[in-house]
């Protein structure tokens, strides 16, 4: 089992924290894991991406980066950046997309239309029918999406059992001391939301 997970969004959304939690859970469950965080522009409102690759074969050799058509799973936290990242997703791969837009100042001023969540899901539908559209998330979004991911993981691929609810809760408790209660509640909210998405899919 080998899985490549591509995460994208904007600085400040907590993508790196999300990616760190997922990769640490995988690593602690004995999987071989690589993580690449591209965060250079994060603090100035720019695009942030994380790339996680994992395998249950301890002897497996693989590079840390994910290029076009390699990602089995794509998690997008911002509409524009999720659209920008489409090419990374494998055909038929699973996409978890958040309905959240951050419109850049220039577009606010020029009143240019910003892509909508509907356009995003239509676009992704050209590539896969496994889209988990997260429309009524709560803050912090990264914890909510982690909850959704945890709930839908068994549906996405076998071998993601390290993401089961109790295991992730434990990971959050160990790694995130600040605002722990809020994080756990939001994670569980996301988990319930993910369950409801599964019933719909």
């Amino acid at each position, binding site marked *: 089992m080998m899985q490549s997970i591509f995460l994208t969004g904007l600085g400040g959304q907590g993508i790196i924290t999300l990616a760190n939690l997922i990769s640490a859970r995988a690593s602690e469950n004995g999987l071989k894991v690589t993580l690449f965080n591209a965060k250079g522009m994060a603090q100035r409102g720019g695009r942030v991406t994380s790339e996680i690759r994992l395998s249950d074969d301890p002897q497996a050799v693989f590079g840390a980066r994910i290029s076009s058509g390699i990602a089995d799973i794509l998690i997008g936290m911002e509409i524009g950046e999720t659209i920008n990242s489409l090419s990374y997703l494998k*055909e038929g791969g699973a996409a978890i997309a958040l309905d959240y837009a951050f419109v850049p100042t*220039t577009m606010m001023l020029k009143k240019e239309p910003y892509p909508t969540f509907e356009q995003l899901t239509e676009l992704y539908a050209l590539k896969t029918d496994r889209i988990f559209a997260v429309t009524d998330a709560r803050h912090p979004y990264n914890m909510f999406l982690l909850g959704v991911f945890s709930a839908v993981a068994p549906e996405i691929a076998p071998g993601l059992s390290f993401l089961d609810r109790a295991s992730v809760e434990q990971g959050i408790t160990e790694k995130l001391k600040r605002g722990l209660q809020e994080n756990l509640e939001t994670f569980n909210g996301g988990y319930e939301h993910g369950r409801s998405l599964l019933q719909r899919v």
Partner: protein
Amino acid sequence: MKRSIIGNQAVAYGALAAGIDVAAGYPGTPSSEALIELLHFAAAAGGDPAPYVEWSVNEKVAFELATGAAWAGKRALATMKMSGANVASDSILSVAYSGTKGGLVLYIADDPGAEAGMPEQDTRLFAQWAGLPVLEPADPARAYELARYAFELSEACELPVILRSVTSVAHAKQEVEAEFTYKPLGRQADFEKNIFRYTKAGAAICMDQHRDLLQRLQAAQRSAAQAGVNRLQKGTDGGELFVVAAGALIPYVREALAAGDHGKLSTLFLESVYPLDTELAGRMFETAQRILVLEELEPFVEMQLRSEASRLGWTGTILGKLDQLFPRVGKYSQETIGRGLTLLTEGQGEHKRPAVSVGQIHGASATPQSAATPGTAAQTAADGRQAALQVKHPITFCAGCPHRGSFMAINRALKKIGLNRDNTVVTGDIGCTILGMNPPFHTCWTEVSMGSSIGLAQGFYRGGIQNPLIATIGDSTFFHAGIPPLVNAVQHGANLLVIILDNGWTSMTGFQVNPGTSDQFQAQGARRVEIEGIVRGMGVENLQVIGPFDQEQSVDKIAEALQQEGVKVIISKQECALTAARREERTLIYKIDPEKCTFCRSCLRETGCPALYVTANGGKSKHGRVMTIDPEACTGCGLCFTCCKFDAISRKHLGGARS
């Protein structure tokens, strides 16, 4: 012991395991975390032994400092990004002639794909020019091993060794088996007086040293070969088809080979890329008929192999960049590697068509469209639709950034004296301050290299540009390379305004300490050096210090200076908002009264502050929309307040009271 660390941290622990005594560097993505980790290690050591570690004023000084320690017989590390090697180059090329006694390692991180937004400079070519051996680790685990080994190699051949990594290794995190401890070697410092080796006085000395350098390079080749850094493995066809891969691409090639039916292919994996391992290359040429060379950026290994092939009279085919089969721009994707393997195994039919053309490769995240590679029909349709929907999030000054105030003041001062940002040249410089080129400021015209804003502006003046000239530069950049061009301007009587945007930190690369950082954040035994004193010491008489959040004063002073002759310097001084915010020193924020906001958006148009956003349904404006300030992001700088003509923006003290 095993820990998950990134490649840069692995370099730090490799150097600690090698027993370094001194490490110095200048911050630069993607190299910075190597020295950061060493600083953390030294700070946490308490009474235990630790190396001396510092952020130097620039890369040249860092390298010279490391060299001095190594010439005294100690082991020393210098760290920098590829552009930093250019700054240090004067000393690197000269030190190469002298060689070294103690292990001297130069860690340089390159950036194929320009993910950190700088040139795709290939340090391996630089190393060849200088005549220094190059090690290129495949992943973080190898970065640890090779960093450690680099010091042994350096001492074996008496040359500085370049440890070269790329973003994909420097920032990749994986479990690394390492010792995570420091093993001081306990050597006594001892520098032998030998002017024939350590000076460049006279042609005879220089030519002797050149000869010595070439001999040491040969010794380096033998040492690396004996150490088994490179690996050759024959496939089932007896070695007819070879894949040569360098450094960071090795794991991707191994992944591709394991995934397909490639048992017949032979491999030569190179992590010691200069000088070429002629022994292993020779063994390959004995049996090979076709050789695929996989390396990012310049055809560095390929050129060496072609040259060796020619020397040996080998007549097979090399598939690489020089016949346009692979791009020199950007990173290689998994698909690029897959196409290469197909080309190697399937042969000439494919040969004439470029496997991947420039621009189709998996490129920088800033231009996601370059990630698109030709695929199935469905993918193409999806990618076509994607192109139409693509958006960009241009990076801007953080909420509360003092540079926002400086650039607003420059634009307002120009307007005040009847000029504007499109008829007045404002040169920019490296660091956060260059964001003054982006919307909504559009102020900066140029960005070249550290300190270049001040030199370039003098050129525009001497070249005859009539309107006033402004050079903008950050504090760390000023210390790094801005002092000599300012001295030049003073000496030669240029006419320009230099604005030093002093936020007290080297912020763009992650808030490192620089000479101007407040004393309370300086390392033990270190102290602050005041920019004001330096500028006055140069003989600049027209010097003003402003606070960029006081727009009235700032605009007046800048406008006044623009109308004066000679060299004028304005220091725009206010601490970086992020470092201040991290200490939770915020006492007030601003808020917008939705009853008063007319949605004229002046605040957004002038500040572009990311704390400002549009609220769709609120207020009484005829648009049904109002501007809102995110109370979490606002740092209370008040710049938006200076834009509002409708008294809609007011202060809110964090105690709750309003004023």
